């Protein structure tokens, strides 16, 4: 399809391209984004050509045909923007309207000034209760996990997000203090973590590799260094990694 052609043109001919996509939903997003960019570019060129041509051409009586000059182009634009909207809404619905499947791997992401914590529920697939009073990064309990809760025993907290490829991930975003923005450019993922709320996003990473996790919502003086690393690994590597994590916990 021509769109992929455009994509390749963009990514090859342009030294400053989008970061390579590493998620399942990213490809469609990229296509739609590039389609939009090309349309914008075309309209930009068209408008400026009309502008310059109109300025250079010699004087003539003023246009009077409201229908031809104003309404027909408007209808055309309306159709164009309408189709773009519908396309975008369908992509949006696909990623956001429905929750994750029950088999999705659950990871809790917690933003605090100025660091990301990642918590894996462990074998019981349930996160232990957290209490703000218990938050003590110094004593190795940055999330304030309540030890008296049986579920919390096998929770693993890491500073690096490790995910298996090709499995749906269900991220539960939380923030301890202020609003943070959880963003993984390569996964075409962005969602604010709001204090007092748990916000779910779900996606499927596909390409193994290490990627950047950024904070994209101004959260204080350390905003610029609030980043973490995402490692997408093969399912086998992931199981061994989590096993190793359990070792380290004991």
């Amino acid at each position, binding site marked *: 399809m021509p769109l992929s052609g455009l994509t390749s043109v963009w990514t090859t001919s342009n030294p400053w391209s989008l970061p390579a996509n590493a998620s399942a939903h990213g490809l469609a997003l990229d296509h739609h984004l590039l389609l939009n960019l090309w349309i914008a570019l075309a309209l930009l060129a068209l408008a400026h050509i009309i502008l310059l041509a109109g300025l250079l051409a010699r004087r003539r009586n003023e246009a009077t045909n409201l229908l031809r000059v104003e309404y027909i182009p408007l209808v055309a634009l309306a159709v164009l923007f309408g189709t773009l909207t519908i396309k975008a809404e369908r992509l949006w619905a696909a990623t956001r309207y429905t929750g994750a499947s029950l088999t999705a791997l659950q990871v809790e992401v917690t933003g605090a000034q100025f660091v990301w914590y990642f918590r894996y529920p462990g074998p019981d697939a349930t996160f232990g*209760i957290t*209490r703000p009073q218990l938050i003590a990064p110094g004593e190795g309990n940055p999330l304030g996990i*309540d030890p008296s809760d049986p579920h919390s025993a096998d929770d693993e907290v890491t500073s690096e997000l490790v995910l298996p490829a090709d499995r749906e991930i269900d991220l539960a975003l939380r923030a301890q203090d202020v609003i943070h923005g959880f963003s993984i450019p390569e996964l075409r993922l962005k969602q604010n973590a709001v204090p*007092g709320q*748990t916000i779910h996003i779900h996606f499927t990473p596909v390409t193994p590799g290490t990627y950047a996790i950024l904070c994209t919502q101004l959260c204080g003086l350390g905003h610029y260094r609030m980043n973490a690393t995402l490692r997408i690994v093969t399912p086998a590597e992931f199981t061994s990694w989590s096993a190793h994590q359990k070792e380290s916990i004991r």
Partner: protein
Amino acid sequence: MPATITPNKTDQERRRRLEDNDGGSGRRPPTDKRTGGGGDGDNWNDRSHGHRGPYERLHRYRLGIFFALASDLMFFVAIVTTFFVNQSTGHINAYNHYVNEWVPTLIPRILWFNTAILIVSTVTMELARRQMFRENDVMDEWLGLGKPITRRALPWLSATIVLGLAFLAGQWVAWRQLAAQHVFFRTSQSSHFFYLITGVHAVHLFVGIAVLITAFAAFYISRHLETRQIIVDGAAWYWHAMGILWIFLFALLAFFQ
């Protein structure tokens, strides 16, 4: 000029100079209903009365007050919005249950009484306002035949001031009663709103009373009839708006908590 029924040039000029130069100094009969001429047959002469007539200033101020009240309404709407959202926001408690800890603040019974007072004060205010525009009296007063308007309007105006002060006192009592039950501004989510809404409204009424007192003084200070009319009229519209607003806010606090 096209052939339309228009006052002749001199008349027009005089009118304009008067309109621009006299700041309602009353050199023109205040009940004069002359409408402007000129234009090019663009139904200029079919304009609504008072648009070019003597009450130019009055209507200008009315319009200004309308816009001020419009933006004030948005102010309160924003607060009410916050009320609805905070009312239905909860959190996960220590036992991992989702709880909503909104506890309605029981409104003191005296608020009903206060509301009644405010409604009555609106009526008296309207009566005072009506007295300002009785044409015969206006003519008399403008011609300097006594002060019939002042005589008629002052009692109602004073009544409004008294009732307004009574309302504020009543609100104060309400706050005292809540404080006696150890319900303060910071006590609970709903008490925030009770004190905030009643407080902000009280501030508005306070301003209103200040204006009313100014109007009262204006009867003795201001030499211009129109100025007096404007102050009373403006105060009246403001007062009505605050009255209606209070009824909504009261309903919100009484029934929607």
